[in-house]
Structures are given as C-alpha cells and as structure tokens.
C-alpha cells in the first residue's frame, strides 16, 4: 500500500515539475532572442582586441623596436638615409608584415614609442591564398583591402586612438571623481591613473 502511495506521490511530483519546466520554457519562448545574426549584424570588438597589425606610416620614427621585440620575426623593416635641403632624413624603403607568422602577441603595439604600429579590429581575415597575407606592405594605405573590402586605415586609426590607454591628451584632464562617476564616457585616459577609479577602457558595452 505504501508503495502505491509513493508511486502516486512520484507521479504527482513529476507532473508538477513538468508544469514548472513548461512554464520556464514558455517564458523563454516569448523572451527576446539573444542571437546576433552574425554575417548581417556585427559586434564591435573589445577595446583591447588584437586584430591584424597596422601602421600609421607618418608616425613611425624607424627605431626598429618592433622588429626587435617581435618573437616570430613577422615584421620586416629596411630604411635608407636621404639628404633633403641639406638635412639628413631617414626614409622607410620596405616595411612588411607576415600575418602567417604573427602570433598576435601585441608586443609591437606595446613597444612602439610613437604608437605608429598598432593592431586594428579586423577579425574576418580568411583569404584564398597564402600569398595574400604573407607580404602585407604596411606602408600601403589599402593594405587590407583585398582581405576586407570595407577596410579603411583612417577608421582603424580612429578606433585605435580612442582605445589607446595612456595617451597624453592636450585637452584638460577630467578630475578623477568625474572619471569614476562616468566611466563609460571617459574613453580618453588621464595620464595619472587614479588607483580607485575603474579602468576606463571598456567603452563598448553596447553591440553594434
């Protein structure tokens, strides 16, 4: 008798739990979807996302720091000395980047004294041929056009400038309290980082 009662109780509890489960699923059925329809809509990359190595040619001072630090020798730089108006001047003859060797460590970005070399936000970098990413001429304005038709150096530089930490700004620096109060706005970073202030780097909570 007790066995039958237990069985009935089990059946009852099973039914109840089924209804609870069904309530949960129907709630989710009408809840908004979290899917990002990827190829159609794209997400903005994180501020410190390390994409392809990119260069602002006019900012490079030919210090060879990036060449030295690169652990896999993915960068190749040569220069020659020119004499223009009686002044000596160095000029880059070749600055190439081999994306197949690169391990995306970001050391070149970090070491560069003028922030000339940086890593952009490209992440759709599949190509049909090895040669297409083996010898990328960093001096070229349209270096990644063959990988991504929407690539634009100016836009990547802009994103990079916004996200770079420790850049010295000419404009008056916002007081620390204000930075702490509104971390989302302060993409520009104070040169003296306040210890309590949240690291004001993550600006893109919103999706694209």
């Amino acid at each position, binding site marked *: 008798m007790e066995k039958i009662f237990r*069985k009935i109780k089990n*059946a009852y509890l099973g039914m109840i739990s*089924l209804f609870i*489960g*069904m309530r*949960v*699923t*129907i709630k*989710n*059925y*009408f*809840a*908004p*979807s*979290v*899917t990002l*329809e990827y190829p159609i809509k794209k997400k903005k990359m994180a501020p410190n996302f390390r994409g392809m190595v990119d260069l602002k040619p006019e900012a490079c001072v030919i210090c060879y720091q990036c060449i030295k630090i690169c652990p896999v020798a993915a960068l190749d730089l040569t220069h020659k000395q020119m004499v223009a108006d009686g002044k000596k001047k160095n000029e880059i003859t070749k600055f190439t980047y081999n994306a197949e060797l690169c391990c995306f460590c970001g050391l070149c970005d970090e070491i560069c004294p003028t922030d000339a070399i940086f890593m952009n936000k490209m992440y759709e970098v599949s190509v049909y041929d090895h040669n297409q990413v083996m010898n990328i001429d960093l001096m070229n304005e349209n270096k990644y056009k063959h990988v991504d038709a929407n690539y634009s150096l100016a836009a990547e530089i802009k994103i990079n400038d916004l996200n770079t930490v420790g850049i010295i700004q000419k404009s008056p620096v916002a007081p620390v309290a204000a930075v702490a109060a509104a971390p989302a706005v302060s993409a520009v970073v104070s040169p003296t980082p306040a210890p309590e202030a949240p690291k004001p780097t993550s600006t893109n909570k919103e999706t694209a």
Partner: protein
Amino acid sequence: MIDPLSVQVRSMVINSSVILGFISISAMFLIWWERKVSAHIQNRLGPMIVGWHGSLQSIADTVKLLLKENIVPAGADKMIWWLAPFFVVVPSVMAFVTIPFARNFVVHDLNVGILFITSITSVCVLGIFMAGWGSNNKYSLLGGMRSAAQIISYEVPLLLSVVVVIMEAGTLSMQGIIQAQEHGWFILKPNLAIAFVIYFISSTAEVNRVPFDIPEAESELGAGYHTEYTGMKFAMFFVAEYTNLFIVSAVAATLFLGGWQGPFLPSVFWFLLKSYGIIFLSMWVRWTLPRVRMDQMMGFAWKFLTPVALLNLLISGWFMLR
C-alpha cells in the same frame, strides 16, 4: 454515359493528390516550425536566411537531400535496408485515409476508422526495426530494438485510452466520433480527460519524441535506426516522423477535442487549429524535458500507464452502466 467506376477512380485520384500534397507541405512546415520553436525556447532565432524568417529552409533542405548521394553501407542486408523507408512512410500516408479533415472531407470514412489508423500506424515499427536490422550497425540495431520494445509497450495504454472514447461514442468511425461530441468535447469529461493525458503521453512515445526518443537518442546511439541512411532515404524517415506526429495529433483532436467542430470558421480550419495546437504542445514538451532512460521508460509504460489506463477503463465502464 459516364462509367461510375471511372468517376470513383477520378475522385480517388484527386483526393489522394490533395492528401499527398498536404502531407509533404505539412511535414516541411512542421520541420521548420519545430526548429523555430526549439530556437525560441532556447532564446535563439532559428533559421532566418532562406525566405521570411527562414520559412523556405525546409525546401532548401529537401533540394539538398534530393541531390545527395545514396550510400549503401557495405555488409548491409540490401533488400531489407532498401525496403525499410517505404515501410515507414507508406503506413503513415495510408492512415490519412480516414482522418476527417472537414465536415465533408475525408477520403473514405471507414466504419472502423480509428481501428484502421491504430493498426496501420503500428506497421511503422516494422519499418524501423527493418532499418535497424538491415543497416548491420550495432547502434542502428539497438535503436531498432528499442523502438520495437517501446512502440509495442506504449501501444497498450494508447489503445486502452482510445477504447474509452469508443465506449463513449459508441462507434469506431471517425466522423461518428466527431458527431458524438456535438454537445461537448470529450476532453471535458473527467475520465476522458485522463484518457487524453494517457493518449498524449503514449502517442509521444509512439512517434519517438522526447522524452521518449531513446530509439534515436543522438547522444548515445548516433541517431539510432536511421544512422546509415542518406539523401532521400533519410528524408523519408524524417517525413514519416513528422507525418506520424501530425497523425497522432489529428487523432487526438478528433477523439478528444471535437475534430472539425467549431463556430463561425470553416470546419477544416478548426481541425487544423486543434491538430497544430496539440503538435505545439508536443514540441513544447519536447524542448522542456530531458530524455528518459530505457528501463525508466519501459517501467513507466507497464507499471504506471497501463494500470492507470485499465483503471480508467474500469471507471468509464462503471460510469456507463450507472
């Protein structure tokens, strides 16, 4: 003078083409709908690219399956392997003969309609077992055997719950059962409501759906009996599965929810609304529950569902004699 036989043949041809068209469209729609329901329950979107909200996805899939190579596994029992999909599809198509779609639309209202449907759909298990045996693959064989055990066990409570309806209606004809519900659907009576629950549970097992989908348990058997099938043969299993789902839901709508009866709107609309409503319920359950274990499932059928169905039968008989 028109030969009466040719008239009959012609109406049969028309009816059966309508039915066949309906079966393929319904199966495609159900596959798409299942994907959508599962996606939304899991907070996803499901197919979105092909057509409006991916509505043409099933057509794209069908074309893809038609173009696929038909691979016969080496060591398969060729004849049985080849025949199995037909044994699965043909009975489910045949069951449409007695399903009353509307007030005046039923291919042939047999006076043993419900008996015909339940017996013809049991042939499906033969096809599934043939597929499992013929594939010469341990997972397929396990799937086929599980399916045979499951479908035969769940047939018992299913039929016992159908018997309650037959007792109440006093007829086996599908149209007759609907007419018997003119003054209130059968589900409104308590003993028939229990019969409906039993029917729903065992029909879920009959069509191999979660939580009773152990014959095709993807994670343990690699899709079970249809593992070795490719291309159109696989599509036939798929279509049969969704056609069977429609059949059990249509039968449930007919037996318990008054079939095509309903105010204002055309009767076919009511019938489809009720059938697809039950299908939605079954999808909803599918994406809520996990899969049960083999022994749990068999135990549930024999130790719980069958006694309850018998008890229900007894109570209904007592109600009628009173």
